[in-house]
């Protein structure tokens, strides 16, 4: 069963609705004892990475999250929190991945936020992308991106630059796109995560 780490950063109605449609059981994590009930975790998040990190720190769950050994998936800003630093608010983050979250350069050609469906290309073999063809479209909406890094990038997407659409290190995963809004392939990814 998936435990969703709740810390007040963003709405999770669409995520829980997707899990319900897929028949994937889940529950909420509000304190340290709750972690034991689950065998995998999701860190959601939208909005400002610095503000989200401040809220996460207020919960007192940060040391526990950094020590997790079961599959853990950060979504959107929840993924950015896994990195060491964000240019958004010059924020120090969880540092589970020693890479940075950077701001897109806005222009009339490459609009920011990067909004809409873009192609995702796996860079490594991983069960998270099982049954999802290379180059499938996922839904993105973000102004900051995680730098491409050959060691941690699980899949990449190109906008005005190539960036990490997803990252992977040991039991930790992050996706920049919104699987709960990415049609059937997004649902496949959530199902894959529930079986990792």
């Amino acid at each position, binding site marked *: 069963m998936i435990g969703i780490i709740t810390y007040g950063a963003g709405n999770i109605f669409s995520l829980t609705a997707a899990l319900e449609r897929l028949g994937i059981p889940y529950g909420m994590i509000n304190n340290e004892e709750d972690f034991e009930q689950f065998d995998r975790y999701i860190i959601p998040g939208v909005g400002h990475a610095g503000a989200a990190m401040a809220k996460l720190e207020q919960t007192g769950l940060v040391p526990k999250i950094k020590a997790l050994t079961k599959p853990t998936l950060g979504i959107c800003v929840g993924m950015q929190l896994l990195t060491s630093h964000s240019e958004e608010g010059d924020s120090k983050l969880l540092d589970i991945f020693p890479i940075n979250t950077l701001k897109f350069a806005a222009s009339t050609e490459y609009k920011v936020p990067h909004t809409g469906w873009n192609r995702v290309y796996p860079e490594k073999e991983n069960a998270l992308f099982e049954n999802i063809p290379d180059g499938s479209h996922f839904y993105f909406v973000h*102004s900051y991106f995680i730098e491409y890094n050959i060691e941690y990038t699980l899949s990449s997407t190109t906008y005005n630059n190539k960036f990490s659409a997803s990252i992977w290190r040991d039991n930790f995963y992050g996706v920049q796109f919104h699987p709960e809004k990415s*049609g059937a392939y997004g649902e496949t990814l959530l199902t894959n995560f529930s079986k990792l």
Partner: protein
Amino acid sequence: MLSKRIIPCLDVKDGRTVKGVNFVDLRDAGDPVELAWNYSRQGADELVFLDITATHERRKTMVELVKAVARQINIPFTIGGGINEIADADALLNAGADKISVNSAAVRNPALIDELAKAFGVQFVVIAVDTRVIANKNIVHLNGGRVPTEKETLDWILEAESRGAGEILLTSMDHDGTKGGFDNKLLKLVNDSVNIPVIASGGAGSVQDFVDVFEKSNVDAALAASVFHYGEILIPDLKRVLRQHNIEVREIAPPNPPR
């Protein structure tokens, strides 16, 4: 490469879709959730629900609609109509809306854009602009294009961007309902002036109109209502033609089997 988005727009009143919809295989053409599901299956990239409920119960009916859509639909959607304050937006966000579209309230109180962007992030805030030409100038209009304002359209769009709009939904009232094509000239001018995505609206009548708007203005997305509702344009056909013109569009996955 980022895909160009195709966005059907549904008008909703008291929780039911209005304006004619004649899909052959619908059990209930008035049910916004069934319609939304149908469009998502056809390959729509996003949906806009415009709530035209006039009663004082409107926030409650909007929230119920948003929840029902978010439960069933696996693509992003925007809700607009009568959003006047932070509390309206907050209720819709918590019900599962991906974005809100604000029109008149932002014109009357531009600081609302700053407040919304600060509270929810720019990615949540779509500013809808209805424009009509008066004496050779594009002028922002309210109330569905009936009431002119003092604002010139491009000036207002640039102000909205600087205040924190994450996207512009631009409807040409002169083109809307004509089925004579989008206002590509104005859309190009706007798209070349802002660093945020622009959704074209008003005037779609044929598949070629969509080809033209993407080729001539390079906007991120195109929105239409009646051509989709009446089945005059089917989204898979539209996307096939766009692809033939080397316009990047999303290919949809086969649906997952129901559990």
